[in-house]
């Protein structure tokens, strides 16, 4: 790290020294009058670009619900302002000059020098180079930050609780979309149900579960989960462990011997989970099984949770296996 820093400093110093001016030569490009107004406009455009670019991480952090267009707008405006800056510099500040013919072969030393000189002199109308460079730096830095910001979506860093704290507790009643509790006897084989915890916020990631009933002989749960499926009814988190889409597909064979086995499928990338084998991944990009919710049937025949999920709900990231959901 230290060596890299030293190398970088030496490089920057060397560049600065090389920039020392060569003695005056005869001009190629006719000198133009300084354009203070143009320069100022360029500066403010750069600042506007910087402000818009800064807006991106701000919108990202504030996160107004379902308003991704503001993210696009901030980034788009920043780029538009940068484009306008380039247009303005090209049209008003850099001295234009007409070439009669193509540049010569690059090896020719005098012509090469002439091209260098030409480029140098073209910038002559800039009187406040530092100001412009500062503006460009601000815009560039802000844009850079804006482009790096989405990397924060690769995994929760600060706010991990929603993944481990779910509304499910031992004894919590399962209710359907309309708030009616599920009777265990009403849950049929070959059908597919979505359930929520009674009296909890349904928008929470840990709230929705899919409920299916499988023939008892087909269930193949690990020994510690034997009691989790009363009457063959199993419940899994409805949120795919790959990218967090809703598991909206249930395939069930009409005739088992010739057709694919029952599976819960995520419509986004076709991660396919086996409800009979503890939500194991049988196809697709998901890297870990669906978290299973232990179930119990109470004295009145209603379905209730018998605890919390077997693992963290929602999409996976690097630390997902390190903690267990709060009991």
């Amino acid at each position, binding site marked *: 790290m230290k060596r890299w820093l030293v190398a970088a400093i030496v490089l920057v110093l060397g560049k600065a020294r090389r920039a020392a001016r060569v003695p005056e030569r005869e001009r190629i490009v006719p000198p133009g009058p300084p354009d203070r107004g143009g320069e100022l406009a360029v500066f403010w455009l750069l600042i506007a670009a910087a402000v818009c670019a800064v807006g991106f991480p701000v919108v990202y952090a504030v996160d107004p619900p379902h308003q991704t267009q503001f993210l696009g707008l901030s980034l788009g405006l920043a780029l538009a302002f940068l484009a306008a800056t380039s247009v303005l510099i090209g049209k008003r500040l850099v001295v234009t000059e007409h070439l009669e013919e193509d540049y010569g072969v690059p090896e020719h030393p005098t012509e090469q020098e002439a091209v260098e000189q030409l480029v140098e002199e073209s910038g002559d109308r800039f009187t406040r180079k530092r100001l412009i460079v500062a503006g460009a730096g601000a815009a560039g830095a802000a844009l850079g930050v804006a482009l790096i910001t989405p990397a924060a979506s690769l995994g929760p860093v600060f706010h991990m609780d929603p993944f481990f704290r779910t509304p499910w507790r031992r004894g919590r009643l399962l209710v359907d979309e309309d708030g009616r509790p599920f009777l265990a006897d009403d849950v049929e084989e070959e059908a597919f149900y979505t359930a929520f915890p009674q009296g909890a916020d349904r928008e929470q990631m840990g709230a929705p579960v899919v409920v299916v009933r499988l023939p008892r002989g087909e269930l193949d749960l690990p020994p510690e989960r034997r009691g989790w499926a009363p009457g063959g009814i199993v419940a899994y988190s409805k949120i795919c462990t790959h990218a967090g889409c809703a598991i*909206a*597909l249930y395939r069930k064979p*009409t005739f088992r011997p*010739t057709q*694919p086995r029952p599976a819960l499928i995520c419509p986004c990338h*076709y991660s396919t989970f086996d409800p009979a084998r503890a939500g194991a991944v049988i196809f697709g990009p998901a890297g870990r099984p669906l978290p299973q919710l232990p179930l119990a049937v109470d004295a009145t025949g209603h379905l209730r949770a018998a605890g919390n999920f077997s693992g963290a709900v929602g999409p996976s990231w690097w630390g997902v296996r390190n903690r267990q959901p709060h009991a």
Partner: protein
Amino acid sequence: MRHAFCLAVLALALPSLALADPPPAGIVHVNVPPGTPPKELGFQLYSANCVMCHGPNGSGVYTPRPGSGGERSLGPRLRGVGALAADFYLRTGYMPLRTPYVQPRRSRVLFSDRELRALVAYVASLGPGPPVPRPHPERGSLSDGLTLFTRNCAGCHQINAEGGYVTGGVAPPLDQATSVQIAQAIRIGPYLMPRFSERQLDDRAVDSIIRYVRHTNHRADPGGWAIGHIGPVPEGLVTWLIAMVALVATCVAIGGRRQA
């Protein structure tokens, strides 16, 4: 592991070559004297076309135990499926199926209407089962239909009923499904589709869903171009192609040098 699997597949496939398979294409029509009761005609048609996989009297053809050799499982039991399922599978052309190991697809119906009615009557007579439903989509509510379809159907069939995929199968598009067939499919869950009981979706809910599906079949395309109705990706592509022309024009305008 893979070798074992290949061997297993081969072992399953070999006897099938030896066994006489169902007729590769087409169906067998039977000649009966006029005035034969439909159930009798149905029985004869069943014996000629269906019995190989569904067994005598609709008992199904099941292997006693997997790996025990002998007969393979070919088709499910039909006792108790009722007129509802028979009518659906026959009128969609799902049955007869060329081989029992593929997904039934909508295809040309080879039976005549009289033969269809006879077969349905025969299958219905095998055991007590649900009759052919009579949906009334005009009584349903379009907005309820949208909600119910989104909740229960759109995962596989897509929100515009264009159909889609599940791993190992295809969710068919619903544009050719009649109202009766939609009502039937909801109750029986053909092939890999889950079924929905009266308790989950009552008849009124089914009416609403059918009304919504009918609505998706006759869409007004406010934007003009439907671009296949398959969502934002092709739409974005077309937009991008148009935008590219505009962008190139802008670049040319910016890059033009002032004439001296």
